[in-house]
């Protein structure tokens, strides 16, 4: 009985909120505001690209996506050339970088002698952080002349007239073009993809690997039928992150792709990507429609990369990887 009367005995003095409660609310509000700012930033990017690109989008309609005419003189723009260039270079870069980065990751997790494991692993991770403009400069000044001399010229002279090889290798052997740009892109995304894949492979529980070895599996079998399938989903996510990088990369490509807006006709032909076109022309755009066309290109790039990155993140999340 006495317990229940105790509260009633106390005078009906309302407890005031503790000091600092208001500060707490303000602080939580600030944190919420900052998080919402991220949403606003992404929304802002979409809205600004649509608004900025509208003059071109409304003038050219859907044809903007499918026309390969890019003519600042007559003010007629079509995005097909840069779109195709972007997709081809990114896909080629991925095809080149994927087996190599996979090999590096397998090497680091299964084959590498223990004393070398850390230095090589660290080196790969550090190289993933080198700014892409460095890769671009190397491509322009060092790689392009070598590529022209040792790959383009021999291949072009070896190609028989009328053969597939000849179709693939027409162009000016000056070291710039679709294939060289893809190779530079591949070198650029290689450390990133290798580091990510390695990180993923390290999450495979030791017991899983060891039991495979214990059953008598060879290294190749352990990697290809046990550890790689174990991280399959995350690995696909990692590869798509690499693809996202290759699609949106500006500096590594702009120097060496040749900057022509026509459809590339061969591997050695010059071309352009969305990012390289924007980087080259934006500050020198001659008319409002030109600027708007470039911003619309940005919108296309945004939609492509958003789809790729979104999918990559979903796959990585499900794998529970923190990358």
């Amino acid at each position, binding site marked *: 009985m006495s317990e229940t009367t105790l509260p009633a005995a106390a005078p009906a003095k309302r407890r005031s909120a503790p000091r600092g409660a208001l500060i707490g609310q303000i602080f939580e509000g600030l944190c919420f505001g900052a998080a919402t700012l991220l949403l606003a*930033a992404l929304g802002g990017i979409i809205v600004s690209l649509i608004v900025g690109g509208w003059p071109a989008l409304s003038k050219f309609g859907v044809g903007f996506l499918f026309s390969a005419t890019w003519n600042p003189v007559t003010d007629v723009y079509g995005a097909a050339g840069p779109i195709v260039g972007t997709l081809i270079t990114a896909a080629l870069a991925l095809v080149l970088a994927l087996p190599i980065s996979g090999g590096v990751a397998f090497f680091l997790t299964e084959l590498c002698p223990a004393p070398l494991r850390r230095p090589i692993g660290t*080196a790969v991770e*550090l190289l993933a*952080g080198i*700014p892409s403009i460095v890769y671009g400069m190397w491509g322009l000044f060092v790689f392009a002349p070598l590529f022209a001399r040792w790959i383009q010229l021999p291949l072009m002279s070896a190609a028989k007239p009328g053969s597939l090889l000849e179709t693939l290798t027409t162009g000016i052997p000056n070291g710039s073009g679709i294939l060289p740009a893809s190779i530079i892109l591949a070198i650029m995304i*290689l450390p990133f993809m290798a580091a990510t894949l390695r990180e993923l492979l390290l999450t495979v529980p030791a017991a899983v690997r060891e039991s495979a070895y214990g059953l008598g599996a*060879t290294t*190749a079998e352990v990697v290809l039928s046990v550890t790689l399938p174990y991280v399959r989903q995350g690995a696909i996510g990692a590869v798509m992150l690499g693809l996202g990088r290759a699609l949106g990369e500006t500096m590594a490509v702009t120097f060496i792709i040749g900057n022509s807006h026509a459809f590339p006709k061969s591997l050695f032909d010059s071309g352009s990507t969305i990012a390289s076109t924007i980087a080259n022309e934006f*500050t020198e755009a001659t008319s409002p429609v030109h600027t708007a066309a470039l911003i619309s290109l940005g919108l296309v790039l*945004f939609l492509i990369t958003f789809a790729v990155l979104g999918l990559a993140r979903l796959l990585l999340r499900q794998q529970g990887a923190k990358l």
Partner: protein
Amino acid sequence: MSAAKLVRRRVGDVVFKGFCWSVTGLALVALAAILWSLLAQGFGGLNLDVFTMSTPAAGSRGGLANAIVGSLLMCVLAMVIALTVGVLAGTWLAEYGGRSKYGAVIRFLNDVLLSAPSILVGLFVYELLVAPFHGFSGFAGAVALALLAVPVITRTTEDVLLLQPTTLREAGVGLGAPLSYVIRQVLWRSARGGLLTGALLAFARISGETAPLLFTALNNQFFNKPWFDLRHQTANLPVVIFNGALSAYDDLRRLAWAGALLIAGTVLAVTIVARIVAQEQRRS
């Protein structure tokens, strides 16, 4: 049959191992070649003028002093903005609303922003801050860089806060402190090392970014007057390198290599410091 199969498996294994060894060798050779050119060409272009004089016209004496100062100013301002927004946003995700639907959406968008093409961020800031005010400015450049740094900081902040033991929060709140006080005075302090790592990684990420600066900060042959005035177009290392590399003049190209060496050196140094900080953190 089993003998033939054994041989096939052995051969497959040898081929696989050989492939791994050789592609690793190939990758390391390619990357070493890039570093070698960077060092050889970059040191060739480095001299005292690089640090004391402004960007030259082709054929005359000059250096990168204005670009170095401009880059530093923009990066520092960007980091101040990004740390404020990023740490608060990461805190919200970890401590307040991270488990809600809205939190999941924010986290997903942050992940997408984390690897969004930087040139699009440049276009956005151009539309937001350059076109309406009729002028390229160092301030716009800093905002673009901040936008690239925020997702990195948000991500690391959330991750390190979630690593802090729940007992820490319970102890603080149990003593009667408001949660916001516990977060600021206890959690942020104990997560200090991780937050520093995130900040350093974000700094390394933005210090070499070129694409977003091309149409925000643009470039400037001279120092702004006064030198810290970011209201006008501002010289910065990445764009000077870009222009120099595309120019037809040998002296500008040499300068571009020197600048590239400076940037890559900075990025590597900062990343290494970040790793050391992270390791210290793990040990303690």
